[in-house]
């Protein structure tokens, strides 16, 4: 109807500019394009699930246009979002191209709505979390913590390797001397085995074990005992190896050996 007067026109543009500036000034307060979209969506005053994404895209684009008119630098991600929303808008408005394999405008719009709803949900959750009773504000810990006393108990340990190395160290000292403790009167089984292996070849027939006792080991009782035991043990070992046979007439009777015929 009536043309707006110059005065009115001017007024409108001033109020528009003021509104635009108010938004621009607030850009700093927005946590990114998604936050801005969420704020814009509130003007629709509907459930986020029923939001008109097309209208939202238009709101956003006009916001960005206004910012451009005012020659305000918008952060790159706001512009990237604007480009994407422009793309989304064209998808929503144009009939679907059967050649196009990409997602439909509705699918993209639904995803954006989901993103907004999710961000909104996280904000509400954050608020609910911070509204919970908090330690040091609503509930408290023990004022006088009792330190747990640490009782230190020291245990000592060593490995078998330590032990053997220690022994080897002692036994290989410069002042090394062969150590023999009460070994003067001990005839070892190894010695007896060596001796018998040398002699067994000559033992064709049954021979009393006592014959195999080494010279000089038969007079002294202690030496004789040791030599007898070693020789007997050695004969058992040889019998086990199948080199000799053993025979004893009765308990405590002399033991005889002979070479086993092969």
């Amino acid at each position, binding site marked *: 109807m009536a043309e707006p007067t110059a005065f009115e026109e001017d007024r409108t543009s001033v109020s528009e500019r003021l509104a635009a500036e108010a938004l621009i000034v607030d850009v700093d307060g927005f*946590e*990114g394009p998604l936050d801005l979209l969420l704020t814009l969506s509130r003007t629709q005053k509907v459930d986020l699930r029923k939001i008109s994404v097309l209208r939202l895209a238009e709101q956003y684009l006009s916001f960005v246009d206004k910012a451009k008119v005012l020659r305000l630098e918008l952060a790159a991600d706001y512009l990237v979002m604007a*480009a994407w929303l422009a793309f989304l808008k064209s998808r929503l408005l144009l009939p679907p191209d059967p050649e196009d394999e990409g997602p439909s405008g509705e699918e993209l719009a639904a995803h954006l709505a989901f993103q907004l709803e999710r961000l909104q949900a996280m904000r509400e*959750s954050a608020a*609910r*979390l911070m509204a919970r009773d908090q330690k040091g504000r609503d*509930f*408290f810990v*023990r004022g006088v913590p009792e330190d747990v006393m640490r009782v230190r108990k020291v245990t000592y340990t060593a490995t078998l390797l330590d032990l053997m190395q220690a022994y080897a160290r002692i036994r290989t000292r410069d002042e090394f001397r062969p150590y023999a403790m009460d070994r003067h009167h001990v005839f070892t089984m190894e010695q007896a085995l060596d001796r018998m292996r040398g002699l067994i070849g000559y033992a064709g027939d049954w021979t009393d074990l006592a014959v195999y006792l080494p010279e000089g080991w038969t007079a002294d009782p202690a030496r004789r005992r040791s030599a007898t035991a070693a020789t007997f043990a050695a004969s058992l070992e040889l019998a086990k190896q199948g080199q000799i046979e053993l025979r004893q007439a009765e308990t405590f009777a002399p033991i005889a050996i002979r070479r086993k015929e092969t």
Partner: protein
Amino acid sequence: MTETSAPEKSLFEAPPIAEQERMVEAILFASTDPVTVADLAARMPHGSDPAEALVYLRKRYEGRGVRVVKVGDAWAMRTAPDLGFLMQKETVETRKLSRAAIETLAIIAYHQPATRAEIEEIRGVAVSRGTVDQLLEMEWVRFGRRRMTPGRPVTYVVTQQFLDHFGLESARDLPGLKELRAAGLLDSRPLPGTVSLSDEEAEDQAGQSELFED
């Protein structure tokens, strides 16, 4: 020594449950940090059953000015929240968290384990290093396992200190968690049209770089 083994056995027998309850009470009372059942068992006489003693103790403190609360897999004594008004004197002014930090914390708590890309996708902006650092420093958030997707991104999870601070038994008790899950708001929904290599991978890759390709 033809004595029966009875007196010797009693040496290693656990104390009566009432006595164990006293012990748990003393240990929990003395420590400001939550104590695990395993820790309790380690400090109590051999054969004790701190889990059972805790059942009795918790009952005993029901409705008292001090409560026995569960924090993760540990236990602690805390004043009843309704009496907080008496305690202004003890209130320690906690550092004010920024809005970004609070949102990031909530996202990690509700979506854990969450990668930085996931946090950024939900918030729609880059997460500054300082925000996560602050949460890490407060020991409300810690690193979880790396995600087995390309780039093996680190994940973030909330800590026992976080649970302790907000009086939560576990992350499952976060307010509104069930409703959010039922509404599908905790799902990771890739942008339609993005190639879903596998569900898990898509989760990471539905990032903004693809979103804003054009």
